[in-house]
């Protein structure tokens, strides 16, 4: 949606369990500023259609313009893997990836949409994701029936890559982002605008914040730090020559100072900071912001 003096972005919508976050930006003279943000807590017994109508109502009331959405699916819905793609292979090995994911999920290749990032030049490893059409339709049709137009489907990794690129924080460097979600936390390894790796972690997400006991929080944080450290240990083996120095915290708990401090003490070899570039939206809207600002393909 464009005007002659400004550009209004799509509405980026992050589906994070029962939490739904939306963000929209307006861009003028190359500068993007937040136009509207909203966070919806869906009822526990809400079905897809009721949730879609609830989301549409909130977006309408909170001043969002247009109905065009870019939806980020939860990491758990996606199939993702590091795949071996020879350096001399075609630029778009989507058919091979589709067949590979189809075999793994016992589907036909036409029932999947796949994508990949070849994050490191010359490396044979590429990170690929796949989403079945059934899952996509289960997501899109209720929103369409509620009057919303889903223009694209992305994931948290692609959205965070867009955010890191837009903020131009240490461009070109390999950056790790710990995303604190409602149900799960996940870790994304980025290089510029590419996703090198993305995985969902076993540590609980929002439960860390709910548990007010310091000892419990310390235990949960320690487990999270161990998992992050083990993930980071794999980086040099998977991507030879890549060095990781910086880890950003994003999401629900990123703004909790004590949590950042605990992680900083455990990850002493890394520079740990909060990813907060879209004030006043806050770090928890990072994924929604990345989905709103991304230029998606056809």
């Amino acid at each position, binding site marked *: 949606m464009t005007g002659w003096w400004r550009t209004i972005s799509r509405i980026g919508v992050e589906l994070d369990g029962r939490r739904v976050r939306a963000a929209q930006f307006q861009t003028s003279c190359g500068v993007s500023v937040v136009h509207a943000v909203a966070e919806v807590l869906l009822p526990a017994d809400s079905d897809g259609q009721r949730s879609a109508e609830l989301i549409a109502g909130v977006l309408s009331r909170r001043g969002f313009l247009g109905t065009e959405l870019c939806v980020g*699916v939860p990491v758990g819905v*996606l199939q993702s893997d590091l795949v071996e793609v020879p350096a001399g292979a075609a*630029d*778009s090995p*989507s058919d091979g990836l589709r067949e590979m994911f189809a075999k793994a999920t016992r589907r036909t290749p036409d029932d999947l*949409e*796949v*994508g*990949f*990032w*070849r*994050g490191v030049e010359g490396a044979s490893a*590429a990170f690929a*994701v796949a*989403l079945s*059409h059934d899952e*996509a*339709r289960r997501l*899109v049709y209720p929103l369409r029936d509620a009057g919303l*137009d*889903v*223009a*694209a*489907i*992305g*994931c948290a990794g*692609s959205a965070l*890559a*867009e955010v890191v*690129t837009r903020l131009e924080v240490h461009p070109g460097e390999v950056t790790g982002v710990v995303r604190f979600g409602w149900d799960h936390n996940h870790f994304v390894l980025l290089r510029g*605008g*590419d996703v090198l790796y993305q995985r969902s972690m076993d540590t609980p997400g929002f439960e860390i914040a709910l548990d007010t006991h310091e000892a419990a929080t310390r235990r949960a944080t320690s487990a999270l730090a161990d998992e992050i450290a083990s993930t980071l240990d794999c980086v040099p083996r998977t991507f030879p020559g890549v060095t990781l120095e910086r880890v950003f915290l994003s999401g629900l708990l990123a703004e909790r100072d004590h949590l950042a401090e605990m992680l900083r003490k455990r990850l002493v070899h890394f520079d740990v900071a909060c990813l907060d570039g879209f004030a006043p939206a806050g770090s928890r809207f990072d994924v929604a912001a990345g989905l709103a600002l*991304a*230029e*998606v*393909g*056809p």
Partner: protein
Amino acid sequence: MSGSPGQWNLLPRDIVRERARRQRRALWARAGGAYVAVLATVCAAAWTHTRHGPGSARAHATTLAERNAVTRAAIDHVRRQLASVSDVLDHRQGLAEQPDFSVVLKLVSASVEPDTIIRQVSLRGGGTDTLRSVAAPAGSEREPKHFVLTIAGTSRGEIGVSQMSARLKESGAFDHVEIRRTGRENTPAAEGVTFEVECVMSDAVARGALPAPATLRPKGDTQ
């Protein structure tokens, strides 16, 4: 989804195609609407130009000229009617403004001495140039009118004639009073003087300045 963050989309291809078709339809609808709007604007401008353009101005001027001619004819007709009505009005006003000469007769009767006999009184209109200059001021648009009253009779003596003439002058009803002729008349019974007095009275005096008979002096009062 490919290797660039600007190229990913996990939306199923059939939904993408359906959406693209919907967008194309919406685009064509908008373009059609814009075309219709432009067409309507052009037609409206052309219609306005046709209605208010130079050709229309000429036709409008012709219409105005025709209306002007009709109006002028109507004005001429009304003027003729007005002139006719004005003539009738002048005629009737002339009739209405005739002097009341009975007042003159009463004046003459009041001015005559008891030993004087009036034999003839005549009144005629018009007059000589001398009288006209007396009766009508210079530059008057209206034809100057005057009346000449001629009184002829017999008196016992010339004093009676003179007194009558003087009373007529003093009455102010006449512009000019003149004894035109006197002569002896001897009869077996008595001797007397015949006379003829001419009184000139202008139109203005005749219409408005005739004194009421009651204002005349009584007989014998020569003061």
